[in-house]
């Protein structure tokens, strides 16, 4: 789960990482109220989960209420790379002497935590990596040893952070690491990490991605889930506890297992179609799950055909087939279904489907994934 900048800053603040005082605003009037609280000059920042906000005109300096009105008015509702700005973050403008970069992630290849630190901040770190890879210090941290202040300071020296900022940056790194580990982040990134002319080190931006598997020990995350930007289909799927991701195509997909669902998307694409979604109903494929899945797919107006791809392992083919027949009776579908049912007792399952009395215009069965994909794609055209 990705956080907005303002949520990331609030999250940082819990771990004593210095951030600017500020507030979030949904309207121009709210923006002025927050600006008065933060004290002028302030920065009005678009809250969208996409890079390049500044270039798009989504970050503006304001020295009085009129300027706040002007900029907040322009930025709210602005479309930045397909993301519509619903809220702005207003914070007191910081004086900047220097800009650095710091982040923690999990390096899956090394199976260790990874610190990336650079004295060149405020620009895309990918660009720094491409132009001058030596400008980024990469340090692996064993998760059971953690990060000491001494190690953090040495990494800062290695990254050529100037002497005057060393203590501040090292302290910041230790706090950010604690936020990353105790806060169950997939990513905790500060870009830019600034040095103020007064000598303090400060997080001017916040990019935080949380590990949803850890939600059970973070009840405070519920407020973030409320602002997560899901489309109507994804919202419905979440309510029904389905693993669903909305896409732009015309073939609705239902499969059991994440790998098989991904594979189904690929095969539909290979035969010239495009998938409307990713939907994994898990191992069971009973009538309740299948009904819920069909309801979600049915809510997508773009869907022209539905491809149900089930491999029966422990769940036998006849149970899967009965579930599908029952679900088709319960939901009034707008698009025809093509089923590929394979695995344990697939023959018996197919027989049940064939003898269920569902017209061919509504449901047809194909023995292999490829044939079923072709049939579903043909129906979607």
């Amino acid at each position, binding site marked *: 789960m990705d956080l907005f900048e303002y949520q990331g800053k609030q999250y940082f603040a819990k771990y004593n990482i210095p951030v600017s005082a500020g507030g979030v605003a949904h309207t121009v009037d709210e923006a002025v109220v927050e600006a008065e609280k933060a004290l002028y000059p302030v920065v009005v920042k678009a809250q969208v989960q996409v890079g390049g906000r500044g270039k798009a005109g989504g970050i503006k300096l304001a020295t009085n209420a009129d300027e706040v009105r002007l900029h907040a008015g322009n930025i709210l509702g602005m479309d930045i790379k397909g993301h519509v700005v619903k809220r702005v973050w207003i914070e007191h403008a910081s004086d900047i002497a220097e800009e650095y970069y710091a982040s923690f992630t999990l390096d899956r*290849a090394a199976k260790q935590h990874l610190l990336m630190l650079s004295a060149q901040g405020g620009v895309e770190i990918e660009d720094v990596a491409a132009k001058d890879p030596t400008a980024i210090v990469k340090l692996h941290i064993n998760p*059971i040893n953690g990060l000491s202040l001494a190690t953090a300071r040495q990494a800062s020296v290695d990254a050529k952070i100037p002497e005057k900022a060393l203590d501040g940056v090292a302290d910041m790194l230790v706090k950010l690491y604690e936020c990353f580990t105790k806060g169950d982040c997939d990513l905790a990134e500060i870009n830019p990490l600034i040095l103020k002319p007064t000598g303090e080190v400060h997080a001017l931006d916040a990019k935080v991605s949380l590990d949803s598997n850890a939600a059970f020990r973070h009840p405070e995350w519920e407020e973030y889930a409320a602002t997560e930007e899901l489309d109507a289909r994804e919202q419905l799927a979440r309510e029904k506890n389905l693993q669903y991701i909305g896409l732009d195509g015309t073939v609705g997909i239902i499969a059991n297992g994440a790998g098989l669902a991904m594979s189904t998307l690929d095969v539909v*694409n290979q035969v010239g179609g495009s998938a409307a979604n990713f939907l994994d109903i898990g191992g069971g494929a009973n009538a309740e799950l299948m009904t819920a899945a069909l309801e979600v797919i049915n809510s997508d107006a773009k869907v022209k055909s539905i491809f149900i791809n089930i*491999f029966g392992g422990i769940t036998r083919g006849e149970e899967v087939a009965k579930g599908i027949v029952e679900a088709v009776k319960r939901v009034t579908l707008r698009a025809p279904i093509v089923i590929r049912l394979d695995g344990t007792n697939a023959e018996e399952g197919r027989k049940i489907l064939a003898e269920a009395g569902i017209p061919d215009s509504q449901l047809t069965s194909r023995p292999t994934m490829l044939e079923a994909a072709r049939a579903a794609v043909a129906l979607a055209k």
Partner: protein
Amino acid sequence: MAIFVDQHTKVIVQGLTGGQGRFHGLRNKAYGTQVVGGVTPGKAGQDVEGIPVFDSVEDAVKATGATASFIAVPPKAAPAAILEAARAGIGFVVCITEGIPAQDEARVFATLQRDFPATRLLGPNCPGIISPGKCNIGITAGEIAQLPTASGPNVGIVSRSGTLTYQALYELKQQGIGVSTCVGIGGDPVPGTSFVDCLAEFQADPETHAIIMIGEIGGSAEEEAAEFITNHVTKPMSAYIAGVTAPAGKKMGHAGAIVSGGKGTAQGKMDALRMAGVKIGLNPTEAGSLMAEIVNNLR
């Protein structure tokens, strides 16, 4: 021969009295696996259809001589369960639990590496392992696995995805090709056992003559496998990588299956494996057919 588990493997189930543990533990036993005990704190002295239950892994190991553990407990309890098994001297731990926080997985893996290097963890969030006709630990339906033959050729399977593992077993069964061992390494960010670990074992196993590998988007495990194959694997291989059409930035069901920052794409993984001499199928069936050709050439 087979890799990691065989007819001599004695298994305990941590969480045997829970819904999943009971269901799959009993299925594994019915398949012929030596399921010698279960562990649920506070339930020592009870039994599940004749399988004795113990309070701790240590007690279970002392009483049964178990060498492997099957962990089917909720995500909150799984990290402690894995370490308990390791502390009791279990050499092979299979954890099917889905939803363990990545920070916990990283700490568990680092602890195993430092304190219990003799313990191998398979998973978490994996379907388990089956050496057909010998041992089945996890949730794989044993009946879809073709028995290996003494003369071969037999195929080893290693996969990140559960249902695609079954698909691979099924494709091989359709073709009448025997399977030495089928390992599901799981779709989480920090798997205890990697593709490379399995490839090394398959390469060394005289009963395995060819290897099929099923990967997916995210991470760099397939690229590392490709490098290992180039340098160490002489047995013929086919592979399939799921997620060619997956959009960037979206987790495709598995916590580990995500394309981010242009890394972990299916195309990159296929290219790396192709360079290593692996035959690439564009769907699971094609990978199965390619394997059938490989096996026919070996016959």
